[in-house]
């Protein structure tokens, strides 16, 4: 179902639930993996993915359509991730490195990375990046999102995003080269 059809059906109370169910089914995989790559842990990603869709439900009526629905949902998911990580630091008085160490420990325990040394190093290298730069890297490297769309999601200029991705890639390459 096209986004436009989903929005039209959502506007009608009689078909609202059906439309929203379609919306969740359409975007759940992308939102989940976007969140999961930021918070690493499945349970945290599950909670946050649900929170994202609850927010989408609450605010979909006021969605102004000046961005695509996909971009708008990504923006909500991105904000949820960044808020989650910063509140985690505030809640436990953890410095930046301790949260990175916690996420690194989860990556090391991930069965999908067992036996793939280079991929494990890549994931650990990504976790050394600041949250926002990690977000930019994930959107570009894994989701292959165009810079213009990334700009709408993050509220950052295309030039700044290009520079951020370039620096992130260099840091990651340096980290993996040094750890060999």
């Amino acid at each position, binding site marked *: 179902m096209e986004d436009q059809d989903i929005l039209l059906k959502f506007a009608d109370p009689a078909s609202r*639930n059906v439309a*929203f*169910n379609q919306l*969740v*089914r359409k975007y*759940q*995989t992308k939102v*989940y*993996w976007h969140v*999961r*790559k930021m918070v*690493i842990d*499945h349970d945290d*990603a*599950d909670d946050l*993915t*649900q929170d994202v*869709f*609850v927010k989408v*439900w*609450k605010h979909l009526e006021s969605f102004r359509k000046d961005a695509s629905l996909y971009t708008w949902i990504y923006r909500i998911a991105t904000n949820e991730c960044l808020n989650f990580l910063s509140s985690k630091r505030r809640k436990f008085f953890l410095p930046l490195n301790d949260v990175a160490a916690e996420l690194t420990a989860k*990556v090391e325990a*991930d*069965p*999908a*990375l067992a036996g793939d040394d*280079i*991929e494990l190093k*890549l*994931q650990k290298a990504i976790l050394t990046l600041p949250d926002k730069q990690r977000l930019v890297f994930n959107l570009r*490297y*894994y989701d292959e999102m165009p810079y213009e769309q990334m700009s709408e999601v993050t509220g950052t200029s295309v030039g700044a995003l290009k520079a951020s991705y370039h620096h992130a*890639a260099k840091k*990651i*390459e340096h980290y*993996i*080269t*040094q750890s*060999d």
Partner: protein
Amino acid sequence: MKTPFRLDDHPRRPQPLASPPDGYFDQLPMRVMQRVQPAPATGRRPVPEWLAALSAPLRTALAASVVLGGFAASFLLNQPGPLPATSSAAGTLATVPRTELVEYLLASEQRVTLSDLAELPTTEQALPEAYLRASPAEVQDLLDIQPTEDLYL
């Protein structure tokens, strides 16, 4: 020499981490729908609208204030009333005829001892200091000159 790692040469895994449990994406829409649907009405008493409008920290602060206020009110209401002024008590006592006082003491077999007098400073703070500081000899002298002595000894 270390071989430089290049991201472009590395095969990209779109989902590098372990997949979620089987059936996760089949159940997720239903779980989201459960969260966005209004909860069915239960037998619970509804929360007043003004209370529901407050944020959780505000509601907690309000509850704490009510409990502390209750404690404070209970403490204040249980305070003993002001003690009657000693001067008025002494004035009342002065109006009682001396013979009646002696009769009362005899009838109730009360005796004023030195230890009773020694306790006075702690109970009757407003009594004249000159009296409270009386030595045992002075107290005895005062008792000796009482005209009632012969009546009860």
